[in-house]
């Protein structure tokens, strides 16, 4: 027994623990956990975006508040980046294994019907996900690393010069192609969450004959609400918000 204990504590402790998340069950725990984390992030992001409806001052104040978090912001950003990376890397690994598990496919494909949850959403997770990943890079480059105060995007907030993110957003969404592209990706995000939300719970082992039905319905509602929430903003800006005069 002591011998066995000694052997267990030999080098390789880390690889042993990590092996938990390198099985068919463990990998899905990671994608599920990170997926739910991303849903929480998206909810927060949407809530912040809605300050645009109040006006330029509210939105710029919100953006400035985030930026003035200082080191804490970096910690949050690195954490968020890690969640994204784990979600994407594990999803790609899982999907490539799944594709490889059936090299000789069927001549005819069919659907078994209820109670199956297989649908367009569940079968396109990797595609909607990859499009979202590309979108996020473009999105961050466009706004977070877009023109700042140095390029004249300055706004006076309570006597302090802050970045005029509001003007950048409004200018961007006055371009019909950006509006259309943005809305199309938000639609795909809804499709992704349609399967992803309940699937994450199932991957974490949370199944209940009654609650799972509720979680599935909540997933559909959440997907629709998030897609709609992100839809409304660019359309509102395109149609109703005046371009600020510099």
């Amino acid at each position, binding site marked *: 027994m002591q011998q066995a204990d000694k052997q267990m504590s030999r080098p390789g402790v880390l690889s042993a623990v990590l092996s938990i998340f390198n099985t068919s069950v463990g990998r899905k725990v990671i994608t599920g956990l990170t997926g739910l984390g991303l849903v929480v992030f998206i909810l927060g992001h949407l809530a912040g975006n809605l300050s645009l409806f109040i006006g330029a001052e509210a939105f710029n104040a919100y953006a400035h508040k985030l930026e003035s978090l200082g080191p804490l912001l970096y910690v949050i950003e690195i954490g968020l980046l890690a969640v994204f990376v784990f979600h994407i890397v594990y999803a790609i690994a899982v999907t490539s294994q799944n594709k490889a598990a059936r090299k000789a496919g069927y001549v005819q494909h069919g659907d078994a019907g209820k109670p*199956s949850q297989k649908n367009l959403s569940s079968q396109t997770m990797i595609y909607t996900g990859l499009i979202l990943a590309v979108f996020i890079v473009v999105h961050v480059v466009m706004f977070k690393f877009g023109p700042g105060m140095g390029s004249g995007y300055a706004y006076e907030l309570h006597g302090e010069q802050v970045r005029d993110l509001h003007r950048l957003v409004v200018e961007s969404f006055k371009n019909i192609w950006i509006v259309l592209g943005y809305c199309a990706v938000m639609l795909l995000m809804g499709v992704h969450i349609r399967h992803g939300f309940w699937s994450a719970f199932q991957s974490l082992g949370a199944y209940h004959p009654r609650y799972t039905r509720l979680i599935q319905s909540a997933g559909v509602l959440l997907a629709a609400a998030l897609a709609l929430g992100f839809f409304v903003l660019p359309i509102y800006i395109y149609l109703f918000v005046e371009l600020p005069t510099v």
Partner: protein
Amino acid sequence: MSNLNLTLKIWRQPSPDAPGAMHTYKVDNISTHMSFLEMLDVLNERLVKEGKEPVEFDYDCREGICGTCGLVINGVAHGPRKLTATCQLHMREFKDGDVITIEPWRANAFPVIKDLVVDRGAFDRIVAKGGYTSVNTGNARDANEIPIGKEDADKAFDAAACIGCAACVAACPNASASLFVSAKVAQYAHLPQGHPERERRVLKMVQQMDAEGFGNCSNHGECEAVCPKGISISNIALMRREYMKAALKTGAAVV
């Protein structure tokens, strides 16, 4: 009911390594009272009389309880009828003039042996890793010695109803064996019997499942819809809980 004239498109493959292809056959005057396998028997009798090689397919009991038969019929494992194995599927489910596609279970872990017969030895190797309970030798113990609640007994029985036909793997877009393995884990997880092996059972069975080359479970739930015994994907969630508890306690994915 009038009899059926059907066109069958069947996967023919002479040996594991030989290339296969879909072949088309006509069968006439099929009684709607026949089972699907009896319909194939009619075809095979004719092929034998014509001096041709009959279509190879698996079956044993033809009562829907042994789990030996299994065909993908028009893209759906075990065909169109719910909670029904291929042998219990009857021709009344089809219409005159139908074209029926018949394929073997498809998964790398289930190589085709011949025509519609696949090697499901991977399931046996998974079960060998943990589908047992330790018992005391000596006299048989009284059957009702250990009291077990009705709810637990029901859940264990629901999982134990799995006949190991592998339709879950065939239907899964990822060729995952999660429903089968979870049923084999769950049938013991609700009972005091087999408790000493509880942790190593789930870890070793998951390890073997992965080693056999099955895919990961993406929660499509197609498996539950084709299962002739209606095994619920709640068992897959249970297997994941069992796995995480056992793996975190052990500190590794293997014991």
